[in-house]
Structures are given as C-alpha cells and as structure tokens.
C-alpha cells in the first residue's frame, strides 16, 4: 500500500454562462511512497497545480479517488479531521503572497499549530526547532516578511509546512519566483529535510533542473493528462513521449557545448483545455503524428519497469533521440568546472 494513492482523478471546472467545461485534470493516477519525491512536470494548463489542490482537499474533485494510508480522503477538507490535515501540507509558489504581511515570522510558522490546538509551551519549542531546521536565525523570528529576502520568506513557508510533522508535502512551484541561487538553496534544504525526516514530496514544477535534483520519479503532464511517468534518471536519459522530449530539450544548461537534441520540435502553443478531443491532446503540435493519434487517446503502455507512456509511436521516439541525456553529459563537465578550488573531502 502506497502512502498516497491517486486514482482516476478528474477535475472539471464549469464556465459560467456556458455549457463548456475546463477539463483541468483528466483521469490522472499515480502513487507516492514514503520518503519519496514525485515530480509533476508540465507547462501552464497542464493541471499540475489543480492536482496538488485536490490532494490537499482545497477543491472537491469531479471524480476519482484520493487515499492516504489506505483511507479515502473524500471530497473537500471539511470532511477531513484536523490531524489528517496536519499530515498533508503545502508550500506555495509565491512566498511574498502566501505570508501575512502583518504577522511576524514566529506567528506565521506557529499558525498550523494553533489550528491544530497544540498547547502553547510545546508550540514555542517546535517553532524554534522548525526555524533551526530551515536555517532561519533566531533573530529573524521577530521580523515581518517584508523585512527579509524572498529566499528567506520561502524558508518561512517551508518551516510552516513542516511544523505539523506532515507525511506528505505538496510543493507548488516553490522555487519559480526565486533567483537561481536562492532556488538552489531551497532545493538543497528540501532534500536535507527529506533525508532527516522521511517526508514525501509531491513536487509541482516546470523547472526541470530543480526536478532533476530533487525527484525520484517524474510524471509529465500535458493538458491534465499524464503522458509519461517513470523514474527520474530513466525519464531524463530516455524519454519516450514526444512532449517529454520537447520539454526536456527546451532546458538550457549553462554549457555551450551541451545543446539538447532538437529531434522533436513542437509547433504552436498549448491549446485551451476547454474542448479537448477524444484523441491524443498533442496531435495538433506533434511532428510524429499519425492517423490513430487523431482518432483515439493512446493507451498507457509500459516501456520498462515503472516507466509508462501514452503514445502510439513511443518506440520511434526513443530511436529519434538516442544518447539524449544532456543532464548526464553536463554533469561531468560541471564537476570539472565546479571542482576547482574545492577542498577534497
């Protein structure tokens, strides 16, 4: 039994004054094990944020089942017990907006404990411990959010999420608002916390370098559908869906010699998720499109262990991009460049 299990999750939003619906999430299934990071990767309109919200019970899904430790979490958070809510936590994308500007850092971190009705002396101790864990100096606890940098604000956000000892934390683009160096620091912090506490992460992001650093498994989403799912290393080295390939090749690594393959280029932009055809959603943009793609949604096919893809031509995709792993190639170069001046262990 997985820690968190999502089965055929569907989320449709009706449009006011119209019969159409926004099909944000379309039959998405995945699971999350203890101490594991699953990255939900996709661009705007991929439904990744909506999935996170459903998991937390912030919105009631149109269909599907979400279970935590085998317990059906049901619809919205109102039916969840306080204790259960503490077990599933969230870190927001915009630290500046997710923090109350009129509350001191201490009170922000303390907030979930107050909601969980933890007695005051315990709270004080836990807040200080959480602050230490995320690398916030004691002195910062008395500051207001506006007085500290964005990177530090995001640390406050993480401390707040961690304070109720959650088992699953949904990280909704926690680094996209940050500068590159702050981003790297936050990623390292999250990795360390996971190692120490065994927390499971649902890491929602379009930042693939960060995804590569933090995640064990990856699910690639396109228009609310998982098009490919597999272990992180496998997916980066040998993607099998044209969209994954296009997404991965758009990553620009800081080394002019390592240019991602341009074997598959998508044309146009992401269509609106309002009236989706009962076919492959990528058919209109995909260079490998064949007739069946336009007629029927491709079934999930297994490529290798734990690696599944939704594409009629996944075999050809793999052949088109042999030796795809630009991250891997970047690595050896990076080790040489970064290794200079670093004392040996």
């Amino acid at each position, binding site marked *: 039994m997985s820690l968190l299990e999502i089965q055929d999750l569907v989320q449709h939003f009706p449009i006011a004054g119209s019969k159409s619906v926004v099909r944000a999430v379309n039959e998405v299934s995945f699971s999350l094990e203890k101490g594991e990071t699953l990255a939900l990767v996709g661009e705007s309109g991929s439904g990744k944020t909506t999935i996170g919200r459903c998991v937390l019970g912030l919105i009631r899904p149109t269909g599907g089942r979400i279970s935590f430790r085998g317990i059906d979490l049901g619809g919205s958070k109102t039916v969840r017990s306080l204790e259960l809510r503490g077990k599933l936590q969230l870190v927001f994308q915009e630290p500046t907006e997710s923090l109350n500007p009129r509350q001191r850092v201490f009170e922000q971190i303390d907030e979930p404990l107050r909601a969980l009705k933890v007695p005051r002396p315990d709270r004080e101790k836990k807040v200080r411990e959480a602050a230490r864990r995320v690398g916030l100096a004691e002195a910062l606890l008395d500051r207001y959010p506006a007085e500290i940098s964005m990177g530090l604000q995001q640390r406050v956000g993480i401390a707040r999420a961690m304070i109720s000892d959650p088992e699953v934390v949904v990280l909704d683009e926690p680094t996209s608002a940050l500068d590159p*160096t702050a981003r790297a620091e936050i990623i390292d912090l999250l990795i360390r916390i996971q190692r120490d506490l065994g927390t499971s992460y649902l890491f929602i992001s*379009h930042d693939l370098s960060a995804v590569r650093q933090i995640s064990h498994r990856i699910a690639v989403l396109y228009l609310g559908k998982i098009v490919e799912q597999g272990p992180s290393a496998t997916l980066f080295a040998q993607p099998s869906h044209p969209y994954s390939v296009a997404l991965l090749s758009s990553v620009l690594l800081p080394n002019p010699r390592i240019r991602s393959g341009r074997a598959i280029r998508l044309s146009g932009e992401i269509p609106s998720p309002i009236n989706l055809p009962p076919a492959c959603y990528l058919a209109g943009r995909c260079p490998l499109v064949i007739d069946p793609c336009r007629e029927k949604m491709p079934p999930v096919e297994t490529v290798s262990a734990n690696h599944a893809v939704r594409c009629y031509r996944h075999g050809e995709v793999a052949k088109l991009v042999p030796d795809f792993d630009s991250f891997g190639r970047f690595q050896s170069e990076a080790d040489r460049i970064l290794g200079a001046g670093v004392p040996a262990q």
Partner: protein
Amino acid sequence: MSAAPTNNPIDIFNAPILDCENVTVAFPQYGTAASVALRDVSLTLRTGEVLGLVGESGSGKTMLARAIMRLIPPPGEITRGSIRFGGKDLAELDQESLRKIRGRDVAMIISNPRGELDPLQTVGQQIANVLRHHLNLDRKATRERALDLLKQVSIPDPQRRLDAYPHELSGGMAQRVVIAIALACSPRFIISDDATSGLDVTVQAQVLELIRKLVSERGTSMMFITRDIGITAHYCDRIAIIYAGEIMEIADREVFFDDPQHPYTVLLLAAFAQNERLRRYWLGEDKVRESSGPSATGCSFQHRCVRFQERCRSEHPALVERQPGHLVRCHYPVERP
C-alpha cells in the same frame, strides 16, 4: 553563432556600437548617502554581437538598460560616466533627441508583454504608432509594413492578428508582437530585458530561436538581459555577470563557461549541478541565514562568498583583465590547472 559578421563596412574597424564607460547611477536619499544602483559599469558591445547580461533581481541589470535608454525612474540619475552610441554620448543628450533614438536606433524587448502593450489598442495600431512616429510612413505603407513585421516574427494568421487586441493573444504571441515592434525601425541595437521569463519553456525555446535568428540575419547588436545563466550559454556571444550594480566577470562565451573565475559565477553554475557535495560547497554549506549585508569598503559579494578572506572586507576589488578579454573582479579568483 560566430561573434560578428564581416560584410558590414563598420566592421572593418570592429567599431563598438555601444561603449559604456564608468556608468554610475545613484538614487539620492534624504538625509543619508545616495544609494548606488550601478557602480562604474564599463561595457563595450561590438557591432553584431549578442552580449548576455546575467544578474539576480536587484542586481542592476534592468537599471543598466534604463540608463542606456535614459529612462531611469526619478529621483535616480546618471552621476558619472558616458554611454557612447552612434557617435553621441547618450548620457549627455536631451530628452527630445533621445526620443528620436529610442525605438528607432535602440529598441527594447520587454517581459510580460501582455502588461506592456496598451490594452485598448490593436496590435496593428501599436506597431503603427512606432512606424508613423519614427519613419513618417503613410497609412497604407504603415499597414503593409506592420503586416510584413508580423510575418517576420512568424505569427500565424498575421492579417487577422493586426486587428487583435493584446488580451486576445497568447503569451508567446504577444511576445512576438513586442519583437515585431522592436524590429519595426530596423534598429542597430536591441536590448532584451528578461524577454522570455514569463513564457512556458517550450514556447520560450521557440521565441529564443526567433530572436537569435532575426538579430543574426540583420547583424543587429543585442544586449540580452536575463537571470537565467543557462540561456546565455546558447544564445549569446559574450557574457557579463552583474552583481550589486557592478560587473563581476565578463568573457567570451567559450572562455566564460570553460573557465569561470568569479566565485559568484561559479555559484550561479553550481545551481544547475547534480553533484550535491559541490553544490553545497558553493552555496556556502549549511550556514544559518541572517540578513546582514557587505561592509561598505570591501567586495560587494563578501557576505555570500565561500572564498571570503580578510582582504575582501577591507579592499574593494577592481575589474582585472586576467586573460585577454576575460575580466574578473575578485581578489581570489578560482584558478584551474
């Protein structure tokens, strides 16, 4: 991708198109010393060159663009230095003459295009504004040229898009419109300020390819401002790192990524690394965060630097040419065998 095309007669002399010397921008503050947004920035852009300017938010990268455009928000002002462009010092020109240069000789591609385009005017009208003002074209010629521009930036169905309003465009499409406006008067120099940061990654790739193609076809020089050092490795000829209003390191692309010497540059690169040990080292281990800044006299990067030594606190490092064309502002640059 090579540095400069040579069919342009000016190139025989390899004349710089833009030459910033000791540009200093300060914001006077009541009662205390003025806060300095740019400190002695010296940069030369060769004709046809694409220079990547990398910095985090607040580093002064956008301020440099604004200084070149002479659109520094008040009360900030250029207190020192010269910005030579086309035989004139932009720092000395009056607003009237500057308006003839902006949009015509120096064009800007900005981020968040849907916020920057006038919501009440059609795409065609906004392109026409610039064309009519700078080139005095008549109505018919304007429309034809606008249509032609939309075709050049590969907007699908350009005829119809001319009459579209900004809110009817997708992010990528609006970005292309802004590029079209930048190209409208065939400028010699384009500044791209974080132009692709708001786009989805697959769309960003398309737009970057387009920008690079258009500038190299025309031999236009470009300053590509971004906070993503990864982009510059693939779309720029030379890279400059700016931190706290100062240029920290500048070099040609190959040299820059092969032998980065400033600890801040290495830190930026480390953010991409898989190797956790190296990444941790450059990020400064697991130190507890406090908001303390650098001392007034020393290096502006001292409080974040893993190679910090006593000299960094007391003495401000100068921008030193370590190899030809490779300048570094650091007392203890990283050395590789």
